């Protein structure tokens, strides 16, 4: 059995809604609501969902860029949800993040050399010469050249900038990388280059990825296991092949059948769900998907379904599978 690198239990993040003259709290946006999962060493866990489902918030909570409202995060046996800010800073050496927009996440006034060196300075790693060597080494690993070191972010194309973002994340030899929509801003031909690079790095450096994306094709390609989120909750979690071959949750089924497939000869029964995603400040009672679900039962509008293991390694939160448990 592979080792659990990251364990998340009952993670919650509620953002308060304040209103009125006295800025009284009138409610909560339940951005992440009771999410639990494990990440195994060396795997890629994909997290998919539509906008507003809480997937990015979840990623930020794991890095403690946002403080969780409740819940436990355990990384390599250490409870990082209880660390002080100072201790957390040190822990971030092992957990790094790649962001979606390489324009916005690189300082336009710093050269690439400085951008890449900074994490090492922050974590007090190496002397000046060693740091320089490491910067050059990583530039080469991500497919950039030595002479790029003196250039500024605006002198690079989108794909190259994302390579810089990846290099920066790798500077401190992390064990876990949280990639939040790393290829969404890129064109298809460049997207393929970056995905291949990420896979190559994973093999060579034994990295563990949490790959957050809205693109099911990309997630399918890169992930070993996939978790599907809807309105702040994890609704299904299983091996990537199982999820695509046999999705169990009605939302996953709808999501998969909505994705356009690049093959005109491919015919399938489309399950187009009507309506929009409800607001996270006022989620539906019971199962949050029941307002759009074609297989709704009576209890769905009152009882919140629990995450249950329906088949080995295949977890789903849906009342349709309640009997299978017993």
């Amino acid at each position: 059995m592979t080792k659990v690198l990251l364990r998340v239990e009952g993670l919650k993040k509620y953002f308060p809604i304040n209103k009125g003259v006295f800025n009284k709290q009138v409610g909560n946006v339940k951005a992440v609501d009771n999410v639990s999962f494990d990440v195994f060493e060396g795997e890629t866990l994909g997290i998919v969902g539509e906008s507003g489902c809480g997937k990015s918030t979840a990623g930020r909570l794991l890095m403690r860029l946002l403080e969780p409202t409740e819940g436990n995060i355990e990384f390599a046996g250490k409870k990082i949800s209880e660390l002080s800010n100072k201790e957390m800073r040190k822990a971030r050496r092992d957990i790094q993040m790649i962001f979606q927009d390489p324009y916005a996440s690189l300082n336009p006034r710093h050269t690439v050399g400085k951008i890449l060196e900074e994490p090492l300075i922050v974590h007090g790693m190496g002397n000046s010469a060693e740091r320089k060597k490491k910067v050059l080494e990583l530039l080469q690993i991500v497919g950039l050249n030595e002479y790029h070191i003196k250039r500024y972010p605006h002198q690079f194309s989108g794909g190259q900038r994302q390579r810089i973002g990846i290099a920066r994340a790798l500077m401190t030899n992390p064990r876990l990388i949280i990639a939040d929509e790393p290829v969404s801003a890129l064109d298809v031909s460049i997207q393929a280059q970056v995905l291949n690079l990420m896979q190559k790095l994973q093999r060579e450096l034994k990295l563990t990825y949490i790959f957050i994306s809205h693109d099911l094709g990309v997630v399918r390609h890169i992930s070993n296991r996939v978790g599907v989120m809807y309105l702040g909750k994890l609704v299904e979690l299983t091996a990537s092949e199982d999820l695509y071959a046999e999705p169990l949750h009605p939302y996953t089924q709808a999501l998969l059948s909505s994705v356009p497939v690049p093959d005109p000869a491919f015919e399938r029964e489309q399950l187009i769900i009507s309506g929009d995603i409800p607001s996270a400040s006022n989620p539906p009672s019971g199962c949050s998907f029941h307002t759009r679900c074609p297989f709704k039962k009576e209890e769905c509008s009152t009882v919140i379904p629990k995450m249950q293991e329906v088949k080995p390694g295949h977890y789903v939160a849906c009342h349709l599978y309640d009997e299978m448990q017993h």
Partner: protein
Amino acid sequence: MRNKLLEVKGLETTFFTDDGQIPAVDNIDFSVHEGEILGIVGESGSGKSVTSLSIMGLIPSPPGKITGGQILLGEKNLAKLTDKQMQKIRGKDVAMIFQEPMTSLNPLFTVGDQLKEAIVIHNPKWSKKKAFARAVEIMKLVGLPRAEELLKDYPHQLSGGMRQRVMIAMALVCDPKVLIADEPTTALDVTIQAQILQLMKDINKRLNTAILLITHDLGVVAETCERVIVMYAGQIVEEAPINEIFNKPLHPYTQGLIKSVPDMRFKKESLYSIPGTVPKPGTIKEGCRFAARCEFAMERCTQETPPLYVASEQHKSRCFLLDEQEVAKRDESVIESGRVEEIFSN
């Protein structure tokens, strides 16, 4: 063959900037036929959006200008019309929907006001009541519930999917013959995207409106279009019916593009990726614009610009691999190498 509704001939749109003249669209020809859905695919900077804006007469000028070619809609050449003449055509004969429905609706006016504006401009003699009735009718057509109430709402009160439906309603309100949709679903979530694509297919069938769908997503093209044009660096590199483009792509760029899309139905070991990046418009002056990234590039490719070769009646590709000379040369070399083998076997 169906009638040509809109014909673009040798269109050239150039941007005059401090860095010199940049040809964003360079000599493109295509036509949109009655009742069809034609797709234009390409990556950013390929000139697909500039093409659609040129047709609509919406190229920001300065710096942009249509510097050559014709855009024929029936008898009229849209490229030569004045702004005033163009206003009569825009929305009536050719209408357009944009990527971001929030920024293309006016936040200060209700949905009803904006819908009725389009009706009144093109039908000044209609009464208020008639215009309102038409607005309600079109809202129902695009599948918006409670049409009467929604007309009183402001754009920010609607969700992204509903806003895009309102945009489509506005575009259809005067029964245009051609609808240009520039990345209509890019800003939307997949489940909403599926709804909007379904709606566009319905409209195409029910009203027989021809649709020019511009997108970067090959999946969207496969699901909606009958014919596709692939653009690269301001040129058309391939044009074919939908089945041929996916089963028998001829241009190396199209082949690479199709291979580099992750397909969720099966896992590929590693994705094919086209090396390098899309060149900036105007940087490549000689030869094939894809040559630097092409795995089949020959010496000739960097010297001459390939024309659009006709492979079959509906299938064209801008690649020297289709040139008869090259085909002949390849055959010859096969024969020659065959002889070599013969000699060796003897």
